[in-house]
């Protein structure tokens, strides 16, 4: 990328959580927990502030960033800020604060062990995520992608038990294999094109790589992204990773890991291959149909799950595929929708997961069938859950509606009625699997329920839930509220397809 202005802020943003992570690992066992958590916040708040401070530049379309060093012969380790990366960075940095606050409530409320390792790995995940957001070329991206893979592992095996170990292995098998194939894809692509930098609209020309190879490279390269994003049939690590503590699930599902997968797919399809080459090699078609299948099947599976977290996990699998579908439709509207869905899904799903965690810590119940009438005990939590559920289903005036409407408009503009139908059906399915939770919580046996006493989760948990639920409502009404995220998404969508605003 050609940078218009030198700016070291992206580097500082990546460095802050890295330092925090090391400090926590080294000092964590020797200092009071309060000081340990203070390290997290001491990194999280300046980081978010720095991210927000770059929004005006990104909105103005400036390419700011810097080159750190030549990381391999001919390829620099370069950071730059663009609209798409900015969206992901805003979401991740905001939600890091929220999740950290929630984590403190959850981990202490639940008396978890190994908290030092947990907070350290958490900060490391954020380092990797921020690196992903601001990577200016594929190799830089890949480095942080692999760091993210490894940094998530300690979170998945957090409980150190039999089941956690098994999930950890499964997680590693899926992500490492796809990561290594991504590596092979990058090398082959580089040998054919000699380029690495992300360009809106891609740099691969249809004649660069002979046809069967081109599809092979495309598949190798999106593999890593769609594994992390849990596209079927490569999703099964995601529900397995549900054994981890709930804040981890929230991080996995809403903030960092799966979103990194979706973001990776976005970068590869729209910033490396570009719409033309992706269409030419039929890669986008394959991707779109995989996404469609995932959306439908995962919703059907979610309906049958009684464990609340498992149900939400399959909901994530489906919702992530919205983003993938939005990318694969290859239209400006759909790309905008896909990018905005990164925001939307983050706020909705983190609310849902945090609610599930709050219920678990207060009542130790995991299954939906045991939560009948829980709305009486935890009215605030369940209200937030209701709001987020409606958002997931794509009700108007909720954040999920904005993104889905964009994707649907994209599908219409590309003449893809089947995709439109899929999106509408899946919205109904989302209602089918989330509304029963709400209805059971509030309606049946409300006045003689098994939860007669009003007792919410502790405040560090409750406040984040309220904040994210409010965000999913506010961002639905005013998509540009605060951080101009919708504007950024539209900018990125137009830039990819070479349209001016």
């Amino acid at each position, binding site marked *: 990328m050609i940078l218009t202005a030198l700016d070291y802020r992206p580097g500082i943003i990546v460095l802050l959580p890295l330092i925090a992570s090391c400090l926590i*690992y080294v000092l964590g066992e020797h200092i009071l927990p309060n000081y340990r958590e203070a390290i997290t916040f001491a990194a999280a708040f300046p980081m978010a502030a720095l991210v927000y401070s770059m929004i005006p530049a990104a909105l103005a379309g400036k390419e700011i960033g810097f080159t750190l060093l*030549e990381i391999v012969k001919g390829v620099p380790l370069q950071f730059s800020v663009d609209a798409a990366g900015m969206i992901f960075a805003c979401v991740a940095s905001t939600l890091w604060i929220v999740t950290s606050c929630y984590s403190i409530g959850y981990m202490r409320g639940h008396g978890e062990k190994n908290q030092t390792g947990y907070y350290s790995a958490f900060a490391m995940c954020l380092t990797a995520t921020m690196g992903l957001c601001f990577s200016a070329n594929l190799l830089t991206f890949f*480095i942080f992608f692999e760091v993210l893979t490894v940094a998530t592992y300690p979170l998945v*095996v957090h409980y*150190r038990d039999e089941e956690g*170990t098994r999930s950890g292995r499964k997680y*590693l098998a899926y992500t490492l294999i796809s990561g290594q194939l991504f*590596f092979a894809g990058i090398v082959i692509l580089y040998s054919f094109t000699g380029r690495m930098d992300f360009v809106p609209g891609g740099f691969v020309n249809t004649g660069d790589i002979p046809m069967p190879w081109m599809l092979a490279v495309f598949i190798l390269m999106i593999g890593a992204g769609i594994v992390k994003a849990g596209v079927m049939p490569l999703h099964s690590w995601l529900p397995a990773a549900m054994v981890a503590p709930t804040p981890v699930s929230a991080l996995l599902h809403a903030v960092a890991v799966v979103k990194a997968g979706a973001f990776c797919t976005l970068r590869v399809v729209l910033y490396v291959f570009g719409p033309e080459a992706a269409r030419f090699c039929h890669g986008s078609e394959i991707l779109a149909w995989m996404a469609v299948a995932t959306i439908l099947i995962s919703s059907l599976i979610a309906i049958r799950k009684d464990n609340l977290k498992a149900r939400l996990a399959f909901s994530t699998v489906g919702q992530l595929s919205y983003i993938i579908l939005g990318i694969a439709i290859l239209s400006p509207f759909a790309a905008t929708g896909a990018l905005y869905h990164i925001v939307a899904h983050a706020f909705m799903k983190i609310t849902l997961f945090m609610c599930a965690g709050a219920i678990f810590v207060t009542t130790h119940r995991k299954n939906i069938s045991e939560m009948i009438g829980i709305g009486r005990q935890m009215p605030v939590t369940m209200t937030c859950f209701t709001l987020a559920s409606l958002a997931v289903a794509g009700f108007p005036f909720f954040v999920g509606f904005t993104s889905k409407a964009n994707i649907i408009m994209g599908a219409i503009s590309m003449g893809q009625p089947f995709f439109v139908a899929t999106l509408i059906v899946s919205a109904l399915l989302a209602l089918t699997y989330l509304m029963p939770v709400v209805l059971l919580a509030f309606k049946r046996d409300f006045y003689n329920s098994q939860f007669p006493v009003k007792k919410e989760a502790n405040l560090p948990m409750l406040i984040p839930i309220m904040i994210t639920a409010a965000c999913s409502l506010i961002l639905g009404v005013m998509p540009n509220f605060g951080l101009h995220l919708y504007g950024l998404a539209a900018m990125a969508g137009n830039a990819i397809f070479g349209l001016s605003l």
Partner: protein
Amino acid sequence: MKNLPAYIVLLPLCSALLSLALSKIHKHLGRDVVFGALVGSLVLSVVQLVRVIQNGPIHYIFGGYKIPYGIEFSVDTINAVIVIMVCMLGVLSCMFAFNFDKNGDALQVGGAYTMHALLVLGMVGMTMTGDVFNLYVFLEITSLTAYCLIAMGGSRGIVSAFRYLLVGTVAATFYLLGVGILYSVTGTLNMSDMAACLKQGNNDSAMLMAMMFLISAFGIKMALFPFHGWQPSAYTHAHTGARPLIAGAMGKIPAYAMFRYLYCIYGKDFKYFRYVLLIIGVISVCGMIYGSVRAMAQKDIRKVLAYSSVAQIGYISLGFAIGSPLALAGAFLHMLGHAFMKGGLFFAAGAISWKYGTFDLNDFGRIYKRMPFTAGLLTVGALSMIGIPPTVGFFSKWYLACGAAQTHEYVYIFVLVLSSLLNAVYFFKVIEKVFVQADKNRKPLHPEGKGVTEAPITIMIPVVTCILMILLLGVFNVKVIDILLISLKGVAL
């Protein structure tokens, strides 16, 4: 400083001779002398690299006898870097050995350091020499000292050493046969002279014959599949203090010698060059897979690391087999990187065994609670072995893969991918043991005392240095590659 290359070899030699005598006076005097001499060599080798970069290759002739009759040390950027690597590991492992020389009388202790110094001397000499017979001499010095150091590792060590002795002697004989054929064809023993003679004459079949002998000889010495039979038990049962040096550096030097024969003496004009490369490529690929598969089944961390060496040495020879400049640079980067990875992992394993007296992976459960630093460093080393960025393991793999793509040998890229994944299986097994699985009742051999929480400083310095080197070589790999490419440009395919 005209005699710089000679000093690098002479310092350890003198200290080796002094060490035995001095240890008669005081038990630890010998080791201090050896340590000092190795540090001196390290400093000089760094100076040497700077000079080579500034003034071009050094051709040092011993005693002033004219080439091709005299013995020559020819130092270019590649072997200057390798010499630094050897000296550095020598220093670190000497320091590490301080903790494992409590038993035995003065002569045994002093003798161990003598062997240590001689081993470093042999490897340094082998790297720098420009004379094929002189190379044989240093090869034998390396081998003989290695036999001793392995035999010092107790009763199993003696058996392993004997096994290595038999196989190693065969290798030495093969080497002599190869050199004999080349000498009969060219009438010279100087490498550059021999290269010039070989280009003129038309001796392809004799050269092929010699090459086969040489590949077998170096294959045995570097434990390349299928010549690796001696290696796992030798690495496992070697003297604990010398194990990191033996495992980290010893296999790399014959690999470098093989590179010299392939690219500096034979060169790409050799008629059967492609076929030779193909053979090396095929055995490297087999070794990369075989070594990893065997490593998965091991319960002793020393065996895991030893079999992983069989696989990792395959990366290096794979780079030679690909032969494009980037791949060769990648092979040498891997040579350096792997020396520090394997050294670092053996240092870390040594730290654990120093404290708990065990190498059994099943006793490593959640050892991070007692030894967080060692565990963290072990993890970085393991990730580098797998090839996770930003460690050096990833970047050497990157250059190898890019080199393979340059020559359109895409199969090798997928072999690298497969090998990484196989590495991941057993190195994550180690990581899982260290961090996840339940701890057994370990009884510390050395309880935590004042100031010592994990292991003594003389163990921790080597571990930390190796891990730092892994990260530094990884992040600043372009600097190393640039230095290597200065000399590689002329010889690569």
